């Protein structure tokens, strides 16, 4: 029986690259015909009138839902494979004893590719700090990891285009680097709970380098099942709300209070965003529709960054290792960075 299993495994290993090529080709074909398909469905099959409000909403929905879900699946799969090359331990050893500035830049970049879940924020913080990663460098990592994530980038790319996605990626990284560097310069170690420095972090001896290619593609599939499986209802719901706004809310309605002329809209967006705890998937499609109706890009991006990067649950989790003064400074510096980005975009885009 063991031999039969081995033979089957070898056979499926041979077929797998072929399936992967076919899968990508099929994905590409479908993706490029989505607009036509969604129009055929809306105006042909469902018989809605072209130019009607309902027609506009339904077409928007039928086009954006499959588009975003297809992009999400492909990117999450790829990122899952890339992340199998990075582990929290490897990132820690790359950052340990690193000088500030260089450390902050590296930490923010590694925050994007290292697997991260907000429930691991405390063990990660302890593991980093106890191994000698400077406080500000650790915080650069903890800002970048949730804010610049693949779901946010895919949604921005799918709904706003590559320019906005690239702007989000680069300014998100910049905020993480600069905010962590400022906190490091302020020498706030006294506001870390004292017990944090009294104990040492251990080593597991597990090595991610020993994974086979099959295990890495398995990690990609696991990521798709886990992430896409979790966020798809938010995507569908978010795009449904967005589609409603797209068809029914008059042009320019948002311009009056989310437009670029209202300077106070940026801090207001950040203030509204911080207590909200939503994932990128649910928030972006709504935000897209707002943007289409005259809200300014900077205001919208600031709102999104505040929702994803700063949240009350995160503050409560970090309270176990950080004094309230440090949490307040952390939130204050990051919020200031987000506002700066909001104003910058409103001024230049």
């Amino acid at each position, binding site marked *: 029986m063991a031999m039969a299993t081995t033979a089957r495994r070898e056979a499926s290993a041979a077929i797998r690259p072929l399936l992967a090529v076919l899968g990508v080709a099929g994905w590409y074909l479908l993706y490029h015909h989505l607009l036509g398909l969604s129009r055929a469905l809306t105006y042909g099959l469902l018989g809605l009138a072209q130019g009607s409000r309902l027609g506009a909403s339904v077409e928007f929905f039928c086009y954006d839902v499959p588009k975003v879900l297809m992009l999400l699946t492909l990117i999450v799969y790829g990122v899952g494979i890339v992340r199998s090359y990075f582990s929290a331990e490897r990132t820690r050893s790359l950052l340990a004893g690193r000088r500030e500035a260089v450390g902050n830049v590296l930490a923010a970049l590694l925050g994007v590719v290292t697997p991260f879940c907000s429930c691991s924020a405390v*063990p*990660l913080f302890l*593991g980093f700090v106890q191994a000698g990663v400077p406080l500000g460098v650790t915080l650069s990592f903890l800002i970048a990891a949730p804010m610049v994530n693949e779901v946010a980038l895919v949604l921005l790319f799918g709904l706003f285009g590559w320019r906005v996605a690239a702007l989000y990626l680069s300014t998100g990284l910049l905020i993480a680097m600069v905010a962590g560097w400022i906190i490091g310069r302020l020498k706030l170690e006294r506001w870390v709970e004292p017990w944090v420095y009294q104990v040492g*972090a*251990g*080593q597991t*001896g597990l090595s991610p380098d020993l994974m086979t290619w099959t295990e890495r593609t398995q990690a990609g599939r696991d990521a798709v099942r886990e992430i896409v499986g979790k966020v798809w209802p938010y995507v569908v719901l978010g795009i449904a709300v967005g589609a409603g706004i797209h068809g029914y809310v008059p042009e320019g309605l948002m311009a009056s209070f989310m437009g670029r002329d209202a300077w106070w809209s940026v801090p207001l967006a950040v203030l509204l965003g911080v207590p909200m705890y939503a994932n990128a998937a649910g928030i972006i499609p709504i935000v897209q529709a707002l943007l289409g109706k005259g809200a300014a890009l900077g205001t919208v991006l600031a709102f999104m960054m505040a929702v994803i990067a700063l949240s009350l649950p995160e503050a409560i989790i970090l309270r176990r290792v950080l004094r309230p003064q440090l949490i307040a400074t952390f939130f204050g510096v990051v919020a200031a960075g987000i506002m700066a980005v909001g104003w910058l975009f409103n001024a230049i885009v």
Partner: protein
Amino acid sequence: MVVQILGTGCAKCKKLHEAAAQAVAETGVDARLEKIEDVQQIVAMGVMMTPALAIDGAVKSMGKLLTPTEIATLLRGAVS
């Protein structure tokens, strides 16, 4: 042997605990399940990504929700 589930009480940690219980029952291995929820102990074992699974103090998996089948393989490996 002791199968340790390391996690600070998130939803995934509970699922991993259930999967481990199922794997122990299915393999019939003489193992006791133990939850490790103290963050300091988790970090002292070298774990930064939860949930993690350890057998007799040796960490076998981190930041992953293993299936009962995967845990069963780890259990058999630890027995032999």
